[in-house]
């Protein structure tokens, strides 16, 4: 299935892209699995999305825990903890 992935703030800069459409292998069905899938690209991806890094996610523009299930057409965003206000 295809999903849209977005990156914001420090993560967008580290990865050098604001996002992309991505075709997921059938075993990638959650937010956490998508993060691992992207991490396996190596280089900046491995560093920026490493296990120990505080990375938040949103699914269809709502804050989402790592266990959230994905479906075709979803918009998934990854970003550092927010610092507004």
């Amino acid at each position, binding site marked *: 299935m295809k999903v849209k992935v977005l990156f914001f*703030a420090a993560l967008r800069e580290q990865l050098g892209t604001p996002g992309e459409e991505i075709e997921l292998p059938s075993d990638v069905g959650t937010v956490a699995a998508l993060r691992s899938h992207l991490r396996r690209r190596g280089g900046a991806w491995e560093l920026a999305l490493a296990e120990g890094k505080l990375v938040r996610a*949103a699914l269809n523009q709502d804050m989402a825990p790592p266990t959230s299930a994905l479906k075709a057409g979803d918009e998934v965003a990854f*970003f*550092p903890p927010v*610092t*507004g*206000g």
Partner: protein
Amino acid sequence: MKVSVQREDFDAGAEIRALSSDPRVGAVASFVGVVREVGMTLEHYPGMTEKALHRIVDEATGRWQVLGCTVIHRYGELKPTDQIVLVAVASAHRGDAFAACEFIMDYLKTQAPFWKKEAAGWVEARASDDKAAERWR
């Protein structure tokens, strides 16, 4: 209930006067966040930001008696002394207005997708902000 995410500055006095125009309102509590010491650029997630702010305001109106509420958050380039954020809540009595205003601000700090970047780099999130939001659970 008004939510606005905008580049432009806002007039806090005018926003508060607008909330006071309802004769049932006996109290308006407000908070204005201001840029301190160094300039910054504020990035946000268009679409989600508005959705998150509406969700936070809805949560507040479910918990307290709120007659009107205005949340304005700026993005883009901001200089020291510039206003960043306004939260203003109108209620019949001050208790609800104070509590709802503080709740919205605490939740905004941890739930609304804004990120500050200063000349020295991206601002790190603070554990004290998570603690402040947790006490409302």
